[in-house]
């Protein structure tokens, strides 16, 4: 009964939700209660297992969401970051299984490092997700992308998947996944994935056509996850390593003949261990512990021996982070619960770069939240405290310093949701959040500013959702107006290379916007048709210095209009997908002049998938499946640049074969 209710709720929930996940055999024995539902639902949600040919890049999925700008420097190895509602990518928390993926060095999480292969579900929350037992950091971010690992339903004691992707840009990417039930309470999942691409594609370079060079990438990802069940609770452990070696093709600029654009290389070795333990001690009291250790080693070399135009850099960076979160939740009454989450984190950055100050940061996050929830109305209020202590070594000043080292903030938020009738849901929220200056902002030699003020974001928003109940013909409409303001905004824009940033303090930005999403699906016989239209309006204006020449101008890289069209048709085991994205004109500078005007662009990706069910093997319950997919990216071969100077690939064809058993 509980599960059916959950299913019904999930199906009627977010606008762009596709379908409930597969039933989870290992889910903790949790008493379903209205207290487990988020007050503000996910603005966008995608279940990857539902897609016949899921995009291999996370960025390609997030790109079509409302209110989202993905900055993409092109190619396989190019940096990809997400910005939600003009807040800046530093305000967007990326959470993997509830634990934040962070980067204290520049607070930019590269979406290009995430593979969609091991993910089950992707959700975007404006403001935040607010469910029971989440970490304090999850309460603290301005917007949140939650990535959930996929745990497939195992009908047998083991299962697996081999897939091979390849095609454009000289890409070849085999991966292998193995799922094993170790006992009735213990499941293992191991995966290995290799990607190799030469990153070569033609692009228009001023009045000629060239081929992008030095954009190749090789990466290897190895990971293992363990999930277990204990009486009244569950635990999980995730080991992850990622190694890559890539080139940065550099911006397209005027360059004398005979000199290459770039010979820059970067190699990375990332490692993390994360996990958690969630326990329902009584019907009313539960705790969750989450922990993580991560280590990221980067070697960056400009290779002046290959490129006489290169500045001779050969630098190494080591970033380490340790994190612990303890969350408690107590249900005071059926309609009332209280949550307390406390997180501590330690970050360290070391490098052999000159005048490097080796910063260390200890942060504390405390979140107190309470929730009142009934069937037709839910409301929550919270306050988050964040304090961070920096210590950095300046040899010139004679050792370790704590100058300007303490930063703290209180972040309140309030949200309310109501559903007077089953076809209407309305919610509203107000949230204040805060992001710390990154190590680069503060301590980067000659550019950083150790006295930098943190950024503060205030968000007001509402959602109106209309829709029909699930059935043969179903539609949903979401209208989400919002206003937000970011003060003391620090903007980092990569210049010559993606590794070196220019700090720009735009000061203050006010954004008035609206997201609209309409979706419908239709089922008849062997046919299923789905369609989604999305539109975002963002008026993100510079409000830094009244009287300045840029006051009241649209901030860089934010289009006033953007949108996407998604269409898919399924017939028996065939699936056709059509995905068009539109981005209106933008400027690359706050000076909104013709010199810095960026043309609108639109691209269309088309995919075709076929599922072949093979006869079951002996002693096996599950039928092996063969999936064949073909994706054509940028079907109309539109030349476009998301970031000025970084051309994106034209038409490209990618094939995909996967066999699961």
């Amino acid at each position: 009964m509980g599960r059916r209710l959950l299913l019904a709720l999930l199906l009627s929930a977010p606008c762009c939700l596709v379908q409930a996940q597969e039933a989870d055999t290992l889910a903790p024995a949790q008493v379903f209660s209205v207290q487990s539902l988020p007050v503000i639902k996910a603005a966008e949600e995608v279940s990857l297992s539902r897609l016949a040919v899921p995009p291999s890049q996370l960025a390609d999925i997030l790109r079509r969401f409302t209110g989202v700008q993905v900055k993409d420097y092109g190619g396989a190895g190019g940096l990809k970051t997400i910005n939600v509602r003009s807040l800046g990518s530093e305000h967007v928390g990326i959470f993997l299984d509830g634990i934040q993926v962070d980067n204290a060095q520049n607070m930019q999480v590269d979406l290009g490092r995430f593979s969609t292969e091991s993910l089950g579900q992707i959700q975007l929350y404006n403001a935040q997700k607010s469910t029971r037992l989440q970490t304090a950091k999850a309460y603290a971010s301005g917007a949140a992308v939650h990535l959930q690992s996929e745990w497939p339903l195992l009908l047998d004691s083991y299962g697996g998947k081999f897939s091979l992707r390849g095609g454009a840009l000289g890409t070849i990417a085999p991966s292998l996944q193995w799922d094993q039930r170790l006992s009735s309470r213990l499941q293992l999942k191991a995966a290995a994935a290799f990607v190799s691409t030469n990153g070569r594609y033609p692009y228009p370079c001023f009045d000629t056509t060239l081929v992008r060079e030095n954009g190749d990438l090789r990466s290897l990802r190895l990971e293992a996850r363990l999930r277990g069940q204990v009486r009244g609770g569950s635990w999980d452990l995730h080991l992850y390593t990622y190694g890559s070696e890539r080139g940065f093709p550099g911006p397209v600029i005027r360059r004398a003949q005979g000199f290459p654009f770039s010979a820059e290389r970067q190699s990375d070795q990332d490692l993390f261990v994360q996990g958690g333990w969630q326990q329902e001690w009584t019907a009313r009291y539960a705790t969750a512990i989450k922990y993580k250790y991560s280590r990221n080693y980067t070697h960056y070399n400009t290779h002046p021996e290959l490129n006489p135009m290169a500045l001779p850099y050969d630098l190494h960076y080591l970033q380490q982070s340790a994190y612990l979160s303890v969350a408690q939740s107590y249900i005071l009454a059926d309609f009332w619960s209280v949550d307390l989450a406390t997180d501590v984190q330690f970050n360290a950055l070391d490098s052999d770069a000159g005048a490097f100050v080796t910063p260390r940061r200890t942060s504390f996050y405390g979140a107190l939240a309470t929730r009142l929830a009934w069937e037709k109305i839910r409301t929550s209020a919270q306050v988050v405290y964040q304090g961070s202590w920096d210590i950095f070594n300046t040899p010139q000043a004679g050792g370790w310093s704590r100058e300007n080292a303490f930063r703290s903030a209180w972040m309140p938020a309030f949200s309310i949701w109501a559903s007077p009738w089953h076809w209407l849901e309305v919610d509203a929220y107000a949230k204040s959040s805060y992001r710390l200056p990154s190590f680069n902002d503060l301590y980067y030699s000659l550019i950083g500013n150790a006295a930098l003020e943190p950024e503060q974001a205030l968000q007001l928003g509402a959602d109106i959702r209309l829709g029909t109940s699930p059935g043969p013909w179903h539609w949903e409409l979401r209208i989400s107006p919002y206003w937000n303001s970011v003060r003391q905004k620090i903007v980092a824009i990569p210049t010559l290379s993606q590794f070196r940033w220019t700090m720009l303090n735009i000061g203050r930005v006010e954004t008035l916007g609206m997201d609209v999403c309409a979706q419908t699906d239709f089922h008849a016989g062997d046919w299923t048709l789905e369609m989604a239209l999305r539109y975002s309006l963002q008026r993100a204006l510079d409000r830094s210095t009244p009287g300045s020449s840029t006051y009241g101008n649209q901030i860089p890289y934010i289009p006033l209009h953007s949108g996407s069209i998604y269409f898919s048709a399924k017939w028996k085991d065939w699936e056709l997908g059509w995905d068009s994205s539109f981005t209106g004109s933008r400027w690359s500078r706050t000076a909104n002049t013709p010199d810095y005007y960026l043309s609108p662009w639109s691209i269309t990706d088309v995919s075709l998938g076929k599922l072949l069910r093979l006869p079951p093997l002996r002693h096996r319950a599950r039928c092996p499946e063969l999936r064949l997919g073909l994706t054509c990216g940028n079907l109309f071969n539109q030349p476009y640049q998301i970031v000025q100077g970084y051309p994106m690939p034209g038409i490209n064809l990618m094939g995909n074969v996967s066999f699961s058993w």
Partner: protein
Amino acid sequence: MRKTTLLCLLLAAVCACQKTPVPEPAPADADLSGTTVDLSTVQGLVARKIFVLNEGQMGSNNATLDFLRVSDANYIAGAFKKMNPDAAAGLGDVGNDIVVIGDELWMVVNNSGIVEVLSARDETEVAVIALPTPRSIAFDQQYAYVTSWAGASFSDTKNPKGQVYRIDLKTKQVEGSVEVGYQPEGIALSQGKLYVANSGGISSTLPPSYSYDNTVSIIDAASFQLRQTVEVQVNLAKVFADGSGNVYVTTAGNYWDVHSGLYMLDAAGHVSHISDYVSLAALSGDTLYCLGTEEEYEWTLPSKIWEAWRCTNGQKENIDLALEEQTPYGLCVLGQNALMIGDAGDYFNPGSVALYVDGNKKWSVTAGVCPGHFAIW
């Protein structure tokens, strides 16, 4: 309209013909027009054009060339693109130096690896010379000399020393190079010798020494050989040679405990310290004009107190300047009583160029991103 303008110009040219013995047709850029400014209070200005090179932002390919036409006091922005519409890539990435020699305008486009030669008359392209990471330029009668951060041999990947390349003024061909110090910046010719300021700007961030260069390399121009290396102070920036054999060098300091400064070298290579706190300097005849602030390392200070002074034969004399710009980035001396100051603003959006007459601001116009370099024709 355009025809009428041309006709007027033709008439003006014809009228001019009657007065001047050498007939001069109207230059091709005569119908470019921009912002009209006021030069009436500038005394003793003998020039046809004042060129402004806007550096642009590294990696953004947005270096631009502006000029102020003295005859009708018109400030024209983005002249390179207007006069060279076929050059699709524009002027390039990071304009680092600009010098007029004869009727030619030589510009160093650092991150494009290009020395761009234009006609000073109409900004049309004369030659494009490829050179790795060029920084600054100096001339004698026969050659242009360009400092470069790139070593002649790129086998030493760790920290290559820089070079001075020599370009024949007639053929526009590169003819050899001389190795100097680390990341050379400014260069000037004085009495047959080239003085090169070595910065070590990149060396200071590289292991194992993490140190700036502190030397001036002195090259004999005729033999194109390194003659002498003189220690001055860390992180040398620009070099100016007056007509009396004095060579001034500015230093940028180490951004920590050694402040920027101005030093003078005599013909024998003796160094004397003239002043600290030099952010900008520009030579006019035998006098060097400087702009600086004692608060140069106060990174978070919202506004700073700037001081201006000039130096003749090593003698420093304060001048009055009520500077309104907070991010002065380029300096040029006009006539006897005026300064042009480029303001970089936020270093990201287009900056401005202002005129100060007798120490007071007269006007400012919008320029390109980081207006840092001037040349007078």
